């Protein structure tokens, strides 16, 4: 229950306590009133190590409740970061008071059970709950040692271990009643590489549902590679070129594409694809799927932020735009049904819409095979400013980038301090090939190497 379990706690295996709290709020509904109660509780641990010492150790617990009330098409909402009884009563009173100021909206309403079966997910591991604190510290120290030994030019800015656990319940007057819990952990690393006066930076990470699943060696190796590979990088000349996006960069691009396929943006006229269902928006070999039922995705979940079953939704099939993502509100307004794509940022907000576990259907070739076909191009290894230079409403795309030039089918010298630009619409149409190296990442989109033609590189 990724979306519900955003709050950090061990919790009880059956969720009775949080469900009871939620039920008690919903039970106070007056005639003509719809009420949704979302209750969450959780905790996390974070260890940061620097030069063999613990720099900080954070142990945090949080809980809270958010209550949504709808009456006569008007919506009111309130929340509090506590589960004290008096505070909950105050939250319900505030939410009711806030209803008075909403504009009536014929499509306003809570989700209703739709009969779609829930795909069970195993998102909780007792093993992590019992994992001792000194071992957590040791993992961060081990990561720092591994990375420091990887290259003599490397310094370690910080090495971290973190874990989080959370449980959440949602109940409504419309008959939704769900509870779930989830836990997980990660290690991460921030690196610096020096060569003379020059310094470059990198990072590495590994995510797992248990500490055993963490791949410290990969995190250390990637942290070292990312920093050292940019040493000696120069600013390239401006030109139009073919780019190969590293899997992590593709995942960032897909996250932006997802916001253009968001049903709320569509019904409010803010999506550049709003009138384009059924159109060819990409070459025929492109399939884009949102599938939070896939257990390989770190963002896999059994239910969405409104408590409806998560489900597999093909968004682009054979290059043709097939559907948008919807929660119950945007679906009602669009005259369709929810796709189980309600998102929720925790108890302090109401559900939005978004992709939950997006991925391109991979091709077959490795990144080096993709590169071998390119005479003159650019391997983009990182992008920056994706939220300042990309406008998902106009489609303009421009980001800072760093990577390696491609010459005669192989990677050549490193380049940095330049931008890559196109439009989102063009980039989809200009996809030349999708790699076979699908990589699930701790974000709502999976990575895969992607070749895109005719992108402008702006440098000197």
């Amino acid at each position: 229950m990724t979306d519900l379990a955003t709050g950090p706690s061990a919790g009880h295996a059956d969720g009775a306590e949080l469900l009871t709290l939620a039920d008690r709020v919903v039970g106070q509904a007056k005639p003509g009133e719809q009420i949704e109660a979302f209750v969450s509780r959780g905790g996390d641990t974070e260890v940061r190590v620097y030069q063999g010492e613990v720099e900080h150790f954070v142990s945090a617990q949080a809980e809270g409740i958010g209550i949504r009330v709808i009456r006569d098409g008007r919506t009111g909402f309130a929340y509090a970061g506590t589960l004290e009884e008096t505070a909950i009563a105050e939250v319900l009173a505030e939410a009711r008071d806030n209803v008075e100021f909403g504009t009536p909206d014929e499509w306003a309403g809570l989700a209703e059970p739709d009969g779609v079966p829930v795909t069970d997910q195993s998102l909780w591991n007792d093993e992590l709950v019992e994992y001792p604190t000194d071992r957590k510290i040791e993992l961060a120290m081990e990561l720092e040692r591994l990375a420091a030994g990887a290259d003599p030019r490397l310094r370690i800015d910080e090495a971290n271990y973190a874990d989080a656990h959370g449980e959440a319940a949602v109940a409504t007057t419309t008959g939704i009643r769900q509870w779930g819990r989830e836990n997980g952990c990660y290690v991460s690393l921030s690196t610096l590489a020096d060569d003379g006066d020059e310094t470059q930076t990198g990072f590495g990470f590994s995510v797992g549902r248990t500490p055993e699943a963490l791949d410290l060696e990969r995190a250390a190796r990637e942290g070292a590679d990312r920093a050292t590979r940019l040493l000696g990088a120069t600013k390239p000349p401006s030109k139009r070129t073919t780019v190969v996006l590293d899997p992590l960069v593709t995942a960032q691009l897909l996250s932006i594409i997802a916001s253009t396929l968001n049903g709320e943006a569509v019904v409010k006229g803010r999506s550049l694809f709003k009138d384009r269902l059924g159109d060819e928006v990409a070459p025929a070999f492109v399939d884009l799927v949102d599938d939070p039922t896939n257990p390989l995705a770190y963002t896999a979940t059994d239910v969405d932020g409104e408590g409806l079953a998560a489900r597999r939704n093909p968004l682009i099939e054979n290059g043709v735009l097939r559907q948008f993502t919807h929660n119950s509100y945007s679906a009602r307004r669009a005259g369709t049904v929810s796709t189980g794509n309600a998102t929720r940022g925790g108890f302090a907000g109401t559900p939005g819409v978004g992709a939950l576990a997006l991925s391109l259907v991979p091709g077959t070739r490795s990144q080096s095979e993709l590169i071998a076909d390119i005479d003159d191009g650019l391997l983009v290894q990182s992008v920056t400013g994706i939220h300042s230079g990309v406008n998902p409403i106009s489609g303009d795309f421009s980001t800072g980038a760093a990577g390696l030039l491609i010459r005669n089918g192989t990677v050549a010298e490193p380049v940095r301090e330049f931008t890559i630009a196109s439009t989102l619409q063009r980039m989809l149409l200009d996809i030349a090939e999708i790699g076979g190296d699908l990589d699930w990442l701790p974000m709502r989109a999976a990575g895969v190497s992607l070749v895109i033609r005719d992108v402008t590189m702006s440098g000197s």
Partner: protein
Amino acid sequence: MGAARVFRILGIMIDHDVVERTIAEALRTGADFAEVYAEDKRNTSVALDDGRVEQVTSGRDRGAGIRVIKGETTGFAHTSDLTAAGLAEAARAAAVAASQGDGGVRTIALTQAPAHRPNTIVTYPEDIAKADKVALMQRVDEAARSFGSEIVQVSAGYGDSRKRVLVANSDGLLADDDVVRLLVRISAVASGDTGMQTGFQSMGRTVGWETFDDLDVEALARDAARQAIVKLKARPAPSGAMPVVIKNGTGGVLFHEACGHGLEADHVQKGASVYAGKLGELVASPLVTLVDDGTMGTEWGTLGIDDEGHTTRRNVLIEDGVLVDYMWDHIRARKEGRDPSGNGRRQSYMHLPMVRMTNTYVMNGESDPDDIVAQTEQGVYIAHLGGGSVNTATGDFVFGMNEAYLIENGEITEPLREGNLIGNGPQVLRDIDLLGNDFAMGNPGTCGKDGQGVPVGDGQPTLRVKSLTIGGTAS
């Protein structure tokens, strides 16, 4: 100040002796330093979108974070339970986190610091009816929509908060603050033959409702609509390096990214800043004097005390191009044996404080802003910058241009589509060759660092950078 004194300022109501006992509990394992940070925050927001008041939201967050430092290790825990027992439990958790060892018993005596308020609140937003806040957003919506028939969508947001804060530590410090914030945001979408374009405006103040007496929110709304409509005629931005003129009050984010983060002492002490070891050196054009000032009247980054209880100050960082100081928090200042600079901030009681900016700005130069454009043969004029980000270790940064125009033969001509600009901080600071005399503060910002967001302000006069790379698609 008797032991029975109660801190009512917070609505938090923690007995004086409970705070002292909590700190003593946190010190039990032999720690060097312990701190209690308690806050009580209430906020109200109005979201108007698509012509409807979608939702009024009320929120309440209340709790305390306990920090314990032993040697080089910081332990931290927080709780939403502000009873003596809840605080003691969090104090023990933080102490254990900082150390497995066992120390002695230390008692502490707190001394209340005089209240430091950079501004006066006349009308607390909690005393204004929700209906008035809703009406404000309806005026904003109407003003943006009636600006032009091309406007097809408007989203407007209002938010207010009142946060009462108490900070006490084992050095005997005891301080409090009462911070009010008001924020208005408008985004407009225009539609035409060339597709859709967006415009954005916002204002944020650390004072009460009286700020709307002299602030024209409808003018802000019209400006957001104007931007969106202007951009319908925009052509693709150029690609490559060229001179860039940045309008006053719109480009402070350039300094926030190009050098502000690099002057935060945590990055400096770890050798992860291009400005480490450069005190006393010329790091910018001699035109540049850069200040970080947490005491600035009603600005968005203004605070009475920072989130470690230290009074905020006006700190000159770069003077006539020479680096004179960094920004400091408790830990980094202690390591250096100096006073903190009032830059220790945190997102909430659930977060550890670290070095952060407040209001960061470049002081006036002497050039007439019109002359700056007139002296630029070919280039880009940026009338509204978007967000940005920086790598402090390399100095490479990007920021977005929300509204920009070509400069041709010394005149502002055609509007440009959006894109990012990219540059290197130390290089750009040296490349500032003209600085205007028209200083203005810019839009309220939220600065993100290590997963925490805090409100910041920025400002600058009109200025020219000799060469910046524009990330457009036109050759």
